[in-house]
C-alpha cells in the first residue's frame, strides 16, 4: 500500500510517499506510531483513498493512506 505525507509532515519526515508492507489488521494509527518524526496525532487527519477516515480504520493492501496536517485553505 502507499503512504503519503503532505506539507510540514512531509518535510519533517524527509519523504512524501512510500510503499508500506500490509499486514492483517493494519491501521493508520499503527503506521503513524512508526513514523520517525510524527506530529501530535490530535493535530493530524487521516485520509484513505481520498476520503477522511479514522486512525483505527483497518487498511487494505491497495489502499492509499495519507496523513494530513492542519488544513489551511481558502
Amino acid at each position, binding site marked *: 500500500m502507499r503512504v503519503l505525507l503532505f*506539507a*510540514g509532515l512531509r518535510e519533517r519526515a524527509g519523504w512524501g510517499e512510500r510503499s508500506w508492507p500490509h499486514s492483517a489488521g493494519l491501521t493508520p494509527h499503527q503506521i503513524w506510531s512508526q513514523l520517525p518524526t510524527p506530529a501530535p496525532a490530535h493535530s493530524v487527519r487521516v485520509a484513505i483513498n*481520498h476520503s477522511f477516515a479514522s486512525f483505527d480504520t483497518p487498511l487494505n493492501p491497495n489502499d492509499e493512506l*495519507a496523513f494530513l*496536517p492542519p*488544513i*489551511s*485553505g481558502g
Partner: protein
Amino acid sequence: MEAERRDPVEATLPRLDLQLLTTSLDPLACLAAWQRQLADLPGGMPAAEAHFIGRVRGVSGQGLPLEALELEHYPAMAERRLQELALVTAQEATAVLVRHRIGQLRPGDAIVLVAVAADRRGPAQRCGQALLEGLKHDVPFWKREWVNGVGTWVEGNTPL
C-alpha cells in the same frame, strides 16, 4: 436567445462550476463569464448572488512583510472534497462557482473566489459561508508563508 434545455431532474440540481487554478485568478472576469451563463438559464438570472474573494495578505502571521504565499494541495482528494462539499452545501442554490489557486502567489493576488446564485439572499449567503468554511477546514490545502527567503507552514486558519 433560445433558453438552455436541461433534463428536468438535472434542472433541479445546482450547477456546479469548480476549478483549481495553477495560474493567476482574475475573480471579476470569472464572475462576469459565470453571470453570462446564468443569464441563459430558463427563467433568466437568479434573484440573489453572494460573492466572496479572498486575497493574499501583505504580512505574515508573525506580522512581517510577506514575499510570497505557496499553496499545496492533495491532488485528487482536493477536487473530490470540493465536489462533495459543494453538493452538500448547495442544496438550496441554483448555481455555484468556485475558483481556488494552488502554487505560488504574491501579496494581493486572489486566492479564492466563491459565488453562489439562488432565488433568495438567505440561501445564497448561507451556501457561500458554508462553502468558504469548508474550503478552509475540510479540503486538503496547505499554505506556506515566505518571509526573507524562509518558508513557514501555516497551521490552521485566521479567525472568522
